[in-house]
Each structure stands twice: as structure tokens, then as C-alpha cells.
């Protein structure tokens, strides 16, 4: 059995970030990169299934991105992925989540896993769409916001719980192969040991071109997307009234606000 785990190298913004010259993105100088938080949980879920299984399970991490995404893939290798695949081509630049999903689906087509995991969403752009769009390209059953999962290698179906709102869950049985998007809290992701980090550094990362994925340039980038970023700007948000002063003064003012509230609430 094989589980394919789609991961994304996400971006947090450094303080005082600036909009890029063309107004359609942030200047990459202000990017701080890391593995998407959700993907840490989906990788862990795959590794847990592997460790609990009586028959061999292969966990393959896949990411669509330039060379710096290797850092996140190495993290996956250190935490228990058996292989890592990175797909990149200059034509992929400017892709929306749907075009990225088309690439992931092409990898899944070739790798033929029993399950494809993706995070519910990414911490940077929060599209919540990549995994499910990949399922549409593959024509596979799919479900989003999975907060617990029971699956046996080789089984024709898997049982999971979907996290709804207000503490409500729904249990669902799904046919495999399937795409599941994994929610935070489904498990407790492990820390990689120093030894495994060292071992991961020596493992190869398979780099695929578009041709390796049997895709053309027109399948990705703006041509392969369902949306285009027109403009990015810093919102003119209503900001909180800041309480200034040293810690003692700030705490005193906060205590006053609490007392005022209790006075009126009583």
C-alpha cells in the first residue's frame, strides 16, 4: 500500500513587508518559509498508518515548488516519509490552487496510492481547495476536514470522521482510492530526531519536470488556473486603541476596563 502526502512550503511575512513592484504579490525578500502546519498532521497520519500496519506501507511526500521547497520535503523525510518528490517548471509560476492540484493529480496518477492526503488548507493563502480539486482531476472519491481516520492497507474503503461546526462530527465510509484533507489535531505530530534529520539530509529528492508528470506548460500557470491575482494591498483595518505605558501602567488600565465591565454587569 502507498499513501501520497501533498505538502506545501508556506510563506509567513516578515515585519514591515512591502508589496511587489507590479502590485500583485509581496516582495519575496520578506518571505519566511516553512512546512504548512496542516501538512505536518497529514504526514504524521500517514506515518502512523505505516507504523501500525502488518504489511509494508510506503509514504511518499510530494510538493509543487522551486528548489527551496526541498527544505520542507526533507522535514517530511526526517519524520518518516520513505520518498520525496518535487515537481517544478518555470511555467508553474503564477498557478492558482487548481493548477497546482492538476500537477498533484498527475503525480498521483503515476504513483497510484491507495490514499492521497492534503492539508485542509494552507496557513498562508487558506484556499482550502487544492486537495479536493486534485480529487476532481483524478475522478476519485473525496472528503474534507477529516479529524480521525481508520484505514487498513489494501482495504477497499476507509472510515473517517469529518469535523463539522460547534463540536459536531460526522462518521463516513469512503471507497478507495480516495483523497482526504486532514484537519489540525487529528494526531500529535512528532519531532524529528537529530539522527533522522541527518539521515534525511542524505536522502535523494526526486525532481520531476512537467514532462515527467505528462503535463504541458498550458496546463499550469495562468493558462491552467481558474483565477488570477489582480491586485494585493494592505487593508486599512480598524485598529485597536493601543494601551501605552510600561507593564504596570498597561495592567492597571486593563484592570480598570475589567472593573468598569463588572460594575455595569452587576
Amino acid at each position, binding site marked *: 500500500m502507498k499513501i501520497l502526502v501533498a505538502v506545501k512550503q508556506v510563506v509567513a511575512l516578515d515585519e514591515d513587508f512591502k508589496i511587489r513592484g507590479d502590485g500583485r504579490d509581496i516582495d519575496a525578500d520578506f518571505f519566511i518559509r516553512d512546512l504548512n502546519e496542516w501538512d505536518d498532521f497529514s504526514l504524521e497520519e500517514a506515518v502512523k498508518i505505516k507504523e501500525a500496519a502488518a504489511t509494508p506501507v510506503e509514504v511518499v511526500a510530494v510538493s509543487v515548488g522551486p528548489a527551496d521547497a526541498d527544505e520542507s520535503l526533507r522535514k517530511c523525510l526526517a519524520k518518516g516519509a520513505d520518498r520525496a518528490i518535487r515537481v517544478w517548471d518555470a511555467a508553474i509560476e503564477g498557478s492558482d490552487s487548481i493548477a497546482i492540484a492538476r500537477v498533484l493529480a498527475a503525480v498521483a496518477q503515476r504513483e497510484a496510492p491507495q490514499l492521497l492526503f492534503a492539508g485542509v488548507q494552507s496557513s498562508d493563502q487558506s484556499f*482550502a481547495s487544492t486537495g479536493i480539486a486534485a480529487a476532481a482531476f483524478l475522478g476519485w472519491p*473525496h*472528503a474534507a476536514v477529516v479529524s480521525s481516520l481508520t484505514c487498513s492497507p489494501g482495504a477497499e474503503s476507509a472510515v473517517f470522521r469529518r469535523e463539522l461546526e460547534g463540536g459536531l462530527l*460526522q462518521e*463516513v465510509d469512503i471507497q478507495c482510492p480516495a483523497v482526504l484533507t486532514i484537519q489540525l489535531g487529528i494526531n500529535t505530530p512528532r519531532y524529528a530526531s537529530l539522527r533522522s534529520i541527518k539521515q534525511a539530509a542524505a536522502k535523494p529528492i526526486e525532481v520531476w519536470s512537467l514532462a515527467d508528470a505528462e503535463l504541458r506548460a498550458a496546463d499550469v500557470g495562468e493558462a491552467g488556473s481558474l*483565477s488570477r491575482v489582480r491586485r*494585493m494591498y494592505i487593508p486599512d483595518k480598524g485598529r485597536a486603541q493601543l494601551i501605552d505605558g510600561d507593564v504596570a501602567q498597561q495592567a492597571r488600565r486593563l484592570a480598570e476596563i475589567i472593573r468598569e465591565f463588572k460594575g455595569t454587569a452587576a
Partner: protein
Amino acid sequence: MSGILVVAEQRRGELRPVSLELASAAQGLRRPGEQVAVAILGHAPQAFVERLSVAGVDEIVTVQVAQAEFDPDTFESALGALIAARTPEVILVAHSVDSFGFAAALATRLGLGFATDVFSAERIDGGIVATRGGYGQKVNVEVDFPGRSMVLLAIRGNAFKPPERAAAPRVTAFDAPPLQSRAAAREFIELSAGDDLDMAAAEFILTIGRGIGEQAKVPQFRELADAMGATLGCSRPIADAGWLPKSRQIGQSGKTASACKLYIAMGVSGAIQHLAGMKHVSTIVAVNSDAKASIFGVAKYGIVGDIIEIADELRRHF
């Protein structure tokens, strides 16, 4: 291509409130004379007609399907057929747990222009322009859909006010094609509370987030909340780590601070899912070491500083 199709949401026989917000979102996009239709899927969709009969809705389309509750295959098949029959220019769904499961697949299969978590949408030069957040909500992103004659937008909850007035739209039935879904819903499970706490009834809540740093700090905040007479709440990472029970989690998948009047958030960055559970509170005080944290965007008062130091100092006053 003409008209706006709104997809309502229901769960266990209850219409989800966001459905009516979508009807409002449609008004800003409709051209003069353009029709707004609301589709409702379920075992007995007629039951929702009265609730959906609000101002701005011209037609309610009932779609009877085999699955009583949300199911991705069912939604994609039925809505795919409805969209093919009606060719609406704009399709609006909620950005919700359910749409996470079908919207991207529907857009992909039909080649629809597509954007999620949209909080504002308008027509500019005849085309649809949608605005969403980017980079952890630090920027706004305007998205357009070149070459797409139909656009599917997943609209953020609480971004539009539901219509107040009732109306009498016409009701039509749409025959969904028969379908054998590849998933079978078994049952609903209510998470047990973990402790006897009614977060929804609390008027004064002190919430802690990832900023507390380590589990060892939790008792300090529990004690501070007790001393101040506040109910202790938390953001998702604290509950996921097991530092506080899930019943204390405020946000989309946790509890809503419905009765709260004073909300103090310490070390909470303000993820959109957390804000969904508390941003309506009249007095929010945010304490965070990151001056750019999005929680300051909804707070009335803000303190930029070390939350442990502030908590220590605050404790002296109670």
C-alpha cells in the same frame, strides 16, 4: 450566461444561517433585471422554502436527493446538472466545512472561475472581482477570472448581513440525475463537553492562545481567570495540544462566545476561524507580542507586550 445561483446549506433539518447571507451577497452582483435563485438540496427540500423566502430572492429551486445530509458526490452531481441547465453567471456557496468538500471539485469539473473565502465581490468593467485575505489575512487580494463565463465564489460567513424582509419567491423543483455516491454517511457524533461548561453563556471570557508558549503556564491563567471572575477559554492549538479541554475552544469548530460582553485574548494571533467565534463581542482586549497580529484588527483595546508579564501584573489587581 445570466442570473445568480445561491446554494443554501442545511444540516440535520436546520437551515444554516450563512445561506441567507449568500442571498445578500448576491444583491451586490446582480445586474438590473437579473434573477437570483436559491437551490436547496435534501430529502425534503420543500421544508426550507419558508425560511428561504427573503427579500432579493426571485426563485427557490428545490432539489430532492437520495442523501439526507451533505455528501460531495451528491452535491457535485446535482449542482453540476443544475448549473448546466441554468448557466448562471455567478454561483455563490458558503466558505464552510461542506463547501471545502465539493466546491473546488465542482469548479474544476465545470471549468468555472473560482475563489474561496471571499468577503467582498463586485463587478468591475463587466467582470467579477472577488476580494479575499492573503498571507494569514495580512493583505487583501483581489482576484479576477479572465476567460471564464461562469464564476463560483465561496463566501466567508458573517461577511454579509442576512436580508430582514420576507418575500414570496416562486418555487420550482429540479430533478437531480440519479447517483450512487461513493461515500456513505454513518452517523453524527456530538463531542462530549469534557467538563460542565457553557461557554456560550459566559459574559466575561479570558482566552489564551499559542502565545503562552508552554503547558506549564496554563495554571497561572486559570488562576487569573478565577480571580477576575472570568471563564477561561482557548484557541485551537491549546485544545489540540490537550492543554485545555475541547469544550473551552472558541471558534468555528469550537464554541461561539454568544453571550460574551468582555473578551480578553492573550497570546491569540486571531486566525479567521477563531475570529468567527468572538469578533461580534462588543469589548475585545487583545494582548499580544506581535503588533501585526490580526487580533488587533477586531479588538477595541490592544496591548503590545509580553503576555506573561502583563498577566503577572494584572493578577495584583484582583
